[in-house]
């Protein structure tokens, strides 16, 4: 009887790779070494390792670590095409930036995560930028800091500052204009209520405007090219409170009424100041910048105070 030699199947390396890729497609979350072994039990460990390494270097597989061991996951096909020609370091950096999402990541943080030297990082970043894979966005918090994120992502609000910033500049005039518009709206409402001359309860209640009403008014005015949310309007109204021109009360409102948040509604009303300009500031001494140096017999004294002389000539 002839010895049945079990000839080890010399599988084509390409076949092995294709088989592994098919397995990866079957399990999109990733497959462990064990799974590949189960599927192709006749393969030797060495061949398996070679195939996997080749797939990794070609960029078709992702190597991940999980608590069960190593996982291999199929990579997106278009990314695989992009990364052709890039070397491993670039891929690593790209991955880190991708993970940062739309908040972006600072270059120093990239360095920590990838353990690459600074010069290398800079070169890679420049490369990726020229390939239009990532972009640099200036953070509004620290104007020298640049965060990197994927090219097609919209930067997060905390980075650009939201509606009040355009191109990293705080739009002071925009805020001022909104401020005045809101105040005028509330003022006219209060005057209308006062002129109606009904009994005081109704008068007071009708002089209030909820934040929702103000928001609607501002949206209808159309002075803002950026979409403003109700929280934005509330921050503007808060500045009016800090100016002492407006007061706010919170009332309980039924869930579901327009403009209520968590069962509460904020109402705003224009008010007039409590007192007129106080006595001290009507004299030159109240506003004098050199007040502390002034004493009788000195160079600056009440007798030869030029501010007083001007003031007396009024």
């Amino acid at each position, binding site marked *: 009887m002839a010895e049945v030699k079990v000839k080890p199947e010399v599988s084509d390396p390409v076949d092995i790779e294709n088989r592994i890729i098919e397995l990866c497609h079957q399990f999109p979350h990733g497959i462990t070494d064990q799974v590949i072994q189960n599927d192709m039990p006749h393969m030797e460990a060495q061949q398996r390792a070679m195939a996997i390494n080749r797939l990794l270097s070609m960029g078709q597989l992702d190597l991940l670590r999980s608590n069960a061991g190593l996982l291999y996951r199929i990579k997106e096909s278009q990314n695989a095409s992009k990364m052709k020609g890039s070397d491993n370091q670039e891929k690593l950096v790209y991955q880190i930036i991708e993970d940062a999402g739309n908040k972006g990541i600072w270059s120093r943080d990239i360095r920590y995560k990838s353990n690459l030297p600074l010069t290398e990082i800079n070169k890679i970043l420049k490369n990726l930028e020229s390939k239009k894979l990532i972009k640099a966005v200036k953070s509004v918090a620290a104007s020298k800091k640049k965060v990197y994120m994927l090219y097609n992502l919209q930067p997060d609000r905390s980075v650009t500052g939201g509606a*009040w910033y355009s191109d990293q500049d*705080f739009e*002071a005039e925009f*805020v001022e204009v909104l*401020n005045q518009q809101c105040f005028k709206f509330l003022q006219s409402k209060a005057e209308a209520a*006062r002129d109606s001359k009904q*009994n*005081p*309860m109704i008068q*007071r209640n009708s002089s209030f405007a909820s934040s929702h009403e103000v928001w609607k008014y501002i949206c209808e005015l159309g002075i803002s090219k950026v979409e403003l949310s109700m929280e934005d309007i509330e*921050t*503007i109204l*808060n*500045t009016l*409170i*800090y*100016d*002492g021109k407006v*007061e706010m*009360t919170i009332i309980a409102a039924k869930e579901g009424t327009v403009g209520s948040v968590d069962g509460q509604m904020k109402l705003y009303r224009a*008010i*007039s*100041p*409590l*007192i*007129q*300009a*106080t*006595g*001290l*500031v*009507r*004299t030159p*001494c*109240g*506003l004098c910048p050199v*007040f502390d140096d*002034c004493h*009788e017999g000195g160079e600056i*004294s*009440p*007798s030869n*105070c030029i501010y*007083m002389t001007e003031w*007396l000539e009024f």
Partner: protein
Amino acid sequence: MTQAEIKLCSLLLQEHFGEIVEKIGTFLVRTGAQPLRIIVTETGLLLDQVKKGLCVLIQHNLATYQLQKRGGVEYEAQCERVLRILRYPRYIYSAKTLYGDTGELLVEELLLNGKMTMSAVVRKVADRLTETMEDGKTMDYSDVSGTFVRLADTHFIQRCPLVPDTPQNPEVPPPAAPTLVIDEKEMYVVPRVNLVGKGKRRRSCEEEEDGERKVKKQKQGESSEPPPDDGIYWQVNIDRFHQLFRDQGIVSAVASRMDQTSSEIVRTMLRMSEVTTSSSAPHTQPLSSHEIFRSLPAGYNITKQVLDQYLTLLADDPLEFVGKSGDSGGGTFTVNLHKALVSLATATLESIVEERFGSRCARIFRLLLRKKHLEQKQVEDFAMIPAKEAKEMLYKMLSENFVSLQEIPKTPDHAPSRTFYLYTVNLLSVARMLLHRCYKSVANLMERRQYETKENKRLLEKSQRVEAILASMQATGAEDTQLQEIEEMITAPERQQLETLKCNVNKIDASENQVDETIFVLESFIKSTMRKP
């Protein structure tokens, strides 16, 4: 006593009482209670002068004396009371608005003389009023004493403490200094004095020679019997006036924040609690809405329902001037005096910040008042001011001590990079700082006024001489041409100068009063806050 207060005291004393009293008063204010001998040696004046000066100070309630245990007497001047001299015009004006010309003159006489008996002050005021009336009419004493009684009933004037009537024991020598006592109940009781008479007009020069002999005889006749209320002296009750000013401040604040009717209601409430609440209480006694309705002034005919609505509105207002304390009697309400003073003082501080630094700084200031402690970044976010400007403003306010920093270290070694720095506003210390500034401002204004007067002294003297000549010539019936000649002694530019001088002095005077208003608000606030615990 701060340097500014002492300076202001000395200026006031000098202006109203002269050099000697000023020296004594300033010395006492600076060094506290001193016996007579030390005052004499330190001020370098004669014993006689010091005695007279002390008499003046005590008469005007500016100084007190105390019998020490060792047997000596120490004299002490009260700096606060001296500073009240600044407020005399305001007292007189309030009396005028409440009680007319008679009240005004009564309060003025009492302030100018310190302490007076009722008969003396009534006589003087009647004489003064008669001067201003037309020929032939005189002011009756009964009108004046009627106003006097009304002033005493509303506690605007009060009796001075008296020497107690202890039986004189011949063996025990009388004490070196009598201790004055006054009973609470007796303070506002007007003695039953029958003051009959009319005001006398000061006779003109022609009748002088004829009337002189008659007057002399009359004087001799009168001097034999002392006035019936001898020994009962009256003085102005300053605390009551302060209460009045505080009430006025609250009412005007309510009027500007809400409307006229609400302020009338608050004024009624305050008027009802004038005599029942002590001036230092944090709120008034509770008043039921029925009582308020009954006590509303006659002109205001609003229905009970409307009144109730107004009261509810007042109680709900974020200002919190009025609080609801119960439901009996249709709802009982009190006025929160302490809160009202805090709001007024805060508004004053905010207005000062706004005028000095600008409205954006005022925004940051108000923001810090509300949120108590904030970091630099949070200030920028809440106030919606660009970072650079916000930083500049915060630092400017910090350098002027309106705002202070609170450090919260993250690590035990307080390293600056690992510490939180929070900005905060401390109302009490800012109020004190501004009060000190007010005192110095008033002192500056007074000095400037004196300087202006001194500069033009020659001109003033000349104009006075010219007026005297004119008056005497008019009396002797000179012709018009002669009068005109004399008038032309003052040239037109000089006249102009005199006009400007008068204008300036008036302006400075008015502004002194205005700064005094600020002083009043800040002082009341500090006193009320310090009293709270």
